């Protein structure tokens, strides 16, 4: 990477202070996310991938606390910003796609309101009717046919996979410079998964920096440029995807890759 990365994380530490001791969810992570690249965070469940993304957004809740480190976004350290300034960063400069598609949507809001809120939060002058065409277009791109009907639907009227695609659409309409996608394809069939991944690749080509959190190495191999293997809150291996896949250095990485090797 010759260009300066959009998002640079330096020795970030997020600890949880519980009755049974300190849990180091994120323990000194360094990470670079380049513009126009897809950076994959790989690791088993409980490895701290999702906590890392919450820490980047500064949304860690008690008993968790970010105790150290810097998060540089476009030359500003997010850790030094006030809560008010952070609200302008969240959803505008960094957008996030949440893991649980059905619970990450408000049951009383229609899909169009979800999409609209994603953009309206940062631009109060926007009108719903001016955005509808764009929303339809985005829904089609994430593989949801019949977008007019989807826009008027409530989350409970959609399947989990459809909700997940709406979530991806919500990430897309923000037009943020960094998109953090937490397991965006986990509950999709292979065809839809391919459509979403294609869309992510298209966004990447348009210059978005994408952080892809996943445990699916197949997805990583198909889309990502760089990868970070995370275990127990630490980055244990990183580099361009092809290098890591060609010669994994760590036992844990090899272990994660085993299922794929078996298929070969």
């Amino acid at each position, binding site marked *: 990477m010759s260009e300066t990365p959009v998002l640079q994380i330096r020795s970030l530490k997020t600890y949880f202070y519980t009755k049974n001791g300190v849990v180091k969810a994120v323990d000194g992570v360094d990470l670079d996310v380049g513009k126009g690249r897809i950076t994959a965070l790989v690791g088993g469940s409980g490895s701290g991938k999702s906590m890392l993304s919450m820490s980047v*957004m500064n*949304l860690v809740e008690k008993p968790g606390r970010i105790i150290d480190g810097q998060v540089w976004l476009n030359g500003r350290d997010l850790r030094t910003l006030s809560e008010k300034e*952070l*609200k*302008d*960063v*969240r*959803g*505008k400069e960094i*957008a*996030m796609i*949440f*893991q*649980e598609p059905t*619970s*990450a*949507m*408000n*049951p*009383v*809001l229609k899909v169009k309101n979800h999409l609209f*809120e*994603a953009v309206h*939060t*940062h631009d109060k002058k926007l009108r719903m009717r001016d955005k509808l065409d764009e929303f339809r277009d985005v829904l089609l791109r994430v593989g949801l046919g019949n977008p007019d009907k989807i826009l008027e639907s*409530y989350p*409970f009227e959609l399947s989990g996979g459809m909700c997940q695609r709406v979530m991806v659409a*919500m990430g897309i309409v*923000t037009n943020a410079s960094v998109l953090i996608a937490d397991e965006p394809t986990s509950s999709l069939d292979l065809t839809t998964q391919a459509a979403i991944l294609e869309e992510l690749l298209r966004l990447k080509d348009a210059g978005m920096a994408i952080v892809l959190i996943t445990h699916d190495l197949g997805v990583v191999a198909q889309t990502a440029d760089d990868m970070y293997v995370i275990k127990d809150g630490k980055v244990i291996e990183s580099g361009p995807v092809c290098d890591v896949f060609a010669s994994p250095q760590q036992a844990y990485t090899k272990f994660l890759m085993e299922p794929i090797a078996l298929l070969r």
Partner: protein
Amino acid sequence: MVRNILRKLLHNKAAMSGLAVILLLVFAGIFAERISPHDPYKVDLAVKLLGPSARYPLGTDQLGRCILSRLIYGTRTSLYTAMTVTLVILAIGVPLGIIAGYIGGAVDNMIMRLADIASTFPSSLLALAIVGIFGPSLYNLMLVFIFLWWAPFARMVRSSVIKLKETEFVMAAEAAGSRRISIILKHIFPNTLSPIIAYATLRIAAVIVHIAGFSFIGLGSQPPTADWGVMLNDGRQYISSYPMLLIWPGLMIVVVVLAFNLFGEGLNDALIPSSEERAIVKETGGANV
């Protein structure tokens, strides 16, 4: 979603008949002047204690006042007080519940201890105290229920807010940079509404029973006000000779309370999909005197 709820509600015959009775009574209350055959306060001892006739459809009381007219005006008193009290306790309880649940910590603790006090304080005791200090009146009685009955609403709202605060969609809204106030108004408040609406309907019935009860023992509306509780009290001494003086207002109370309970239960079933939460409203919501 609204369509689904309406459909469920429309198919519930009990709820619909409850609603029909409520609407009829509201209509009667609003247009009391037009539909009452007589002035409910006009005393005419020449026609006292008459049985039903064409002129006095339900007869007259011991002072010769038309019972039907008094019942119709009593509808106005009853519904007006019950609805006002319920709206005010909603206006107090819901925001306090949201504040307690959302902010948490010491604020939560303080509000919830106040709620504990309010919900353990016996209403009859407070009624006696307030009436003792300020004198008996319907408004003083309304104050008693406002002071005490905001608590269950605050508690209900608080518990749903605490649950909602942890949901991913609230976290997603935070991650999207939404302001606190818009998270509360768009994501939290609308999701607390269903149990509140159902519970409030049931509470109206409870307020009606309580106000009538306190008016009966002389702590609420004062004679000669056309109020069902007052009518019951007035008719007390004629219980053996002219029982209809008591039966009519008693019947009205039963009918209106039943109507609100049926409708409230119907709303409850339609609005709250999980039977577990429904049980909570049912257990605490009925007009238990």
